[in-house]
């Protein structure tokens, strides 16, 4: 069984890794968007990360010291070795597209839909990339930092029922 350090070393050797860091025993590996799918596949097949715990996203707009706008977070877990690893991918406008990981882990399906719904990041070859939480008619991606907290009037654009018509 390879330790996390050995896994990171193996990834670095293949040249896929942009940066790594460790915080309180949790290791994070940054990869380029176009290398995400191969790296994820390798982690699954070669190193036994058989579970995708979470896919989420951070908007670094006006974040001190941040160079990229969006940072995707993939939490991986191995049920055999009890190891965890975090994959990070950074994206910038206008190229907000990354490969879907649904072919590797089925659990990516709804989580990628959620990221698409709230951040507007598109996942290539996702089998069903629709909004999952917000109404179909919604046009914005409200977890982006440039979206106003109180919305753009969506909550007021609903039909009104008076007593007379009910």
């Amino acid at each position: 069984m390879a330790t996390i350090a050995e896994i990171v070393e193996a990834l670095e050797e293949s040249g896929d890794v942009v940066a790594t860091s460790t915080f309180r025993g949790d290791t994070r590996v940054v990869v380029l968007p176009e290398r995400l799918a191969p790296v994820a596949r390798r982690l699954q097949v070669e190193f036994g990360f058989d579970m995708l715990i979470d896919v989420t996203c951070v908007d670094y707009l006006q974040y001190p010291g941040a160079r990229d706008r969006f940072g995707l977070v993939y939490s991986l877990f191995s049920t055999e070795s009890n190891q965890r690893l975090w994959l990070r991918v950074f994206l910038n406008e206008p190229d907000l597209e990354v490969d879907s990981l649904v072919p590797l882990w089925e659990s990516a399906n709804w989580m990628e839909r959620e990221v698409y719904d709230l951040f507007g990041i598109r996942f290539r070859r996702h089998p069903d990339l629709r909004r999952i939480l917000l109404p179909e008619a919604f046009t914005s991606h409200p977890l982006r930092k440039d979206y106003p907290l109180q919305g753009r009037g969506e909550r007021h654009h609903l039909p009104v029922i008076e007593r007379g018509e009910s």
Partner: protein
Amino acid sequence: MAVELPDNVVMTRLDTLASWCRKNSLWPMPFATACCGIELMATGASRHDLARFGAEVFRFTPRQCDLMIVAGRVVMKMMPVLQRIWQQMHEPKWCISMGACCSSGGVFDTYAVVQGIDRFIPVDMYIPGCPPRPEQLIQAIIDLQDLITDRETTVGTEAEITRREPPKRALSELPILPSSSGAQFRAPPRSS
């Protein structure tokens, strides 16, 4: 010619009788979407015992209800559901907006939460509080019973009565009336 009535006969108006029946057998529709719903359940349970006011028969189908109690936040995705349930209820029907979120959005001033259900469906009674205590809900039901007594319900449908009434005022304009268990918002009487 005077008619002698036996002691066990009471003379009344049909309206009064109908209102008396209605107000003492309200069947609530519990539209509980958040934490206020817990307080709504407590009101129905044995300690506070809504049955004392004839309103204990919670029904989960709108076809059998005449009092909608909206307890909790309503988000914009939920509003069409709420409206459909309201439209499925038979007249005469009433609506209680329970809690700060339901009446005004409460602390949830965000893109998704409707800022007061009275913007989109008719509301007869508002209960402040986060969450309101069961006593407050009971007081609202008592106030609603008074409101039902005041209204003539057999002379026409609610729709016809509404047409004769002035338009509903916004929540912020409603007077705060003192009542026995704390202040309640109460819609002004709908007289023509």
